[in-house]
Each structure stands twice: as C-alpha cells, then as structure tokens.
C-alpha cells in the first residue's frame, strides 16, 4: 500500500475514526454463569402388573417441599416438580436437605469436596463441588445414585433419587 503525501489526510481520518470501532472495553460487568448447584431428578419404582416386573418411571409428587437442614429458607414450596437444583454448602463438605414429598419426610445427605475458583474482579469466585457420596433416609426414598459427580453448573442431573413403590 503506497501513499503519497496527499493521501495522508485519508490516513488521518482513518486513524481518528478507528477508536469508535473499539467497543471492546471492559465495562465491569460479569458475563459468566456464577450459580452452581446440584441437579436432582426424582424417580419411582413401580410394579407393572402386566409384565409382572418392576419398572422405573419419573416421579412427580403431588406436592414437594425442599429446604436445607438447619436452614429456614425454603427452596421449593409445595411444588409439583421432579427436577430441581440444590445449592451445596460452599464452606463445608457436607450438605443436608429435607425432601417433604406427598406427606413424607426424607433427608438427603451429600458428602462433597469443594474447589474454590476465582474468576475475575467482575465475577468474583465460584465454588465447584465433587460429590463423593449421597446418603438418603429410607422413609419413602429407596436409594440415590450419583450420575455426574462434578458440580460445575446447573445444567445437569448430578443425582438421581429413587422413591419406593406406592
């Protein structure tokens, strides 16, 4: 690209206008997802009389209330859901939640290892968890299994909870 001296004016104009295209400045807002919670899905074992065998189906209680043990704040109140997220403790390696479904209480105890992750000045930090064990009470819950141990977002079913047959 060769320019004579008169073309310098065009260059000046170009250089002066260029900053207006520079809209990539850091505006101090966080654009990363910071909410991390353990995804849970409920299942139930049912007896299929025709096949004379037990089958596993999604379990949607008529009403389920979920809250943390020693915590007054209710996460889900009388909902008709079978998929929900539970916020694990960021400062301890054990989290407990009460599941009150169709008039029966059960407790889920989750043992997990936390990993602190500093993101940036705008976003602060997030805490990821690695689930080691899930221990349910067996009032109405039959068992719980870990599907995805790494809890790094809320877009997954990390734990499946199996309720007993009616």
């Amino acid at each position, binding site marked *: 690209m060769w320019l004579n001296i008169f073309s310098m004016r065009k260059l000046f104009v170009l250089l002066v206008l*260029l*900053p207006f295209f520079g809209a990539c400045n850091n505006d101090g807002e966080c654009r990363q997802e910071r909410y991390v919670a353990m995804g849970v899905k409920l299942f139930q074992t049912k007896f299929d009389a025709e096949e004379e065998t037990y089958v596993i189906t999604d379990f949607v209680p008529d009403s389920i209330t979920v809250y943390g043990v020693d915590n007054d704040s209710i996460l889900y109140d009388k909902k008709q859901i079978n998929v929900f997220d539970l916020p694990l*403790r960021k400062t301890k390696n054990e989290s407990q939640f009460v599941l009150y479904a169709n008039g029966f209480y059960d407790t889920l105890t989750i043992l997990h290892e936390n990993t602190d992750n500093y993101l940036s000045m705008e976003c602060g930090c997030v805490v990821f968890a690695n689930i080691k064990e899930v221990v349910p009470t067996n009032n109405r819950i039959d068992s719980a299994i870990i599907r995805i141990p790494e809890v790094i977002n809320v877009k997954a079913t990390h734990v499946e909870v199996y309720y007993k047959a009616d």
Partner: protein
Amino acid sequence: MSVKKIIVFCWFALLPITLLAKEKSDSASVEMQDTLTKNKQQIFYGFSAHLDAASPLVNYLIDKSTLSFEATVDVDLLHKFFPVFEAGFGYADKLNEENIHYKVRAPFYRFGLNFNILRMKNKTGESKVFTGSYPYIGLRYGFSLFKYGLDGVIINDDYWGVSRPLEVNPKYLYAGWAELVAGVRVNMVKGFTMGWNIRLGLLSHTSKSSLKTQLWYIPGFGKNNTVNIMFNYTFGYTFNYDNKKLK
C-alpha cells in the same frame, strides 16, 4: 464527557501540530536531494529514541488506578523499514466495589517493525527525498513477565448464609500479545521528531490460560484481556546524518 470523547478530542487537538510540522519538513527536502543520491546504496540511516507522553495520561483517564510509561527505539533501514523495540513499565492498584484488590507492577517489552507507507518516487520515477517525516503501519509482539496479587476475595454462600475469605496467592505469569500499529512520525526541526500512533492490541495469551480471566490489567496491554486500543504520542530525537540539513 466520556473518556473516549476526551481522547478523541486530544487527537484532534494534536492534528494541526503534526500537519504543520510535516509541511516545514517538506521544505527541507530539496536540500537533501543531493545527499540521498550520494547514498543510494546505504541501508542503515540512523536510529530514533522517543518517549511516550500519551500512555500515562490515557491510562490515568481510563482508570485512575493504572499507570504506564514507555519509550521507543527504532532503526531506519532504507528509509522504508524501521525495526522497533519498545520498553515500558505498567502499574495497577485497583480496589473494586466488592473490595477485591488487584495489584500488579512490572516492565513490559515490545518488538516489531514499522513500514513507511509514503510513496518514495514521484510520477516520473525519480526518488523523493526522505525528510524524516512519514506515515507508517506496523506490527508488534508485546510481552510481560509479572507477578499479580489479589486479596479481599470473599466467597459468599447466600443460601446457607455464611461467607469466608478466599486466599489467592500471588502468581507469576507470562502474557504476550500482538499489536497492529498505524501512525505518523514527523521531523520537527534538526532531528527532533515527534509522532503519534494508535494500536489495536489483540491475540493476548498467558502462560496459564486458565488464569487469563483473572487478569484485570496486563502491563503494556491494558485493562481488557482480549482486545484493546492504545494510543501513543511520542517525542524524541532521530540520530541521522541528515539532521544537519533539516531546518
């Protein structure tokens, strides 16, 4: 007035000065014609040393918690190619609204090449005289090895109603980036030169890519860790045997 508007205003204010100086240096071109023809085979024509006056001001205007100084040395090869070495020092001491404190201070370096885009021959094919004033485009690779520190980071567990501090140990990191440069160098009088340029910094990378987002400020690159626009206004001296011919 926004920071961007202030910067653009400053550029406009500087334009008449550089244009005026350019016209003065053109008038000296006739006297230098003989010298040029005598030295047709010459490759090395001298070198320049410049200090940047803009980066401390621009950094301060954009964010008062940052500061940057830099200087430039370039070599004149064939009046066309100008290998450049730049060195500077960047500093940031930032406390944000959430009381996270980011601190870094380190030197930085850039090297690259400026290319004189001025047409050096007239319509009849005769060589024009190089006056020491020229517009250019260029490329740079910049890098800095620095230690940054963070404190005041708090982990808030909103649902469980507790919080605790997070220790982030100071880390050493290498950061590099590329720059596209466009600017003007003007010979003011007898070798005293000044100029300005704008730079588009991009392709930044760090020795640990997972830590890149942690960097609020990279010395020599600036606040944003992906794309940046920078501005330099330099003044200095060009050591060139032709200086005595300039008025």
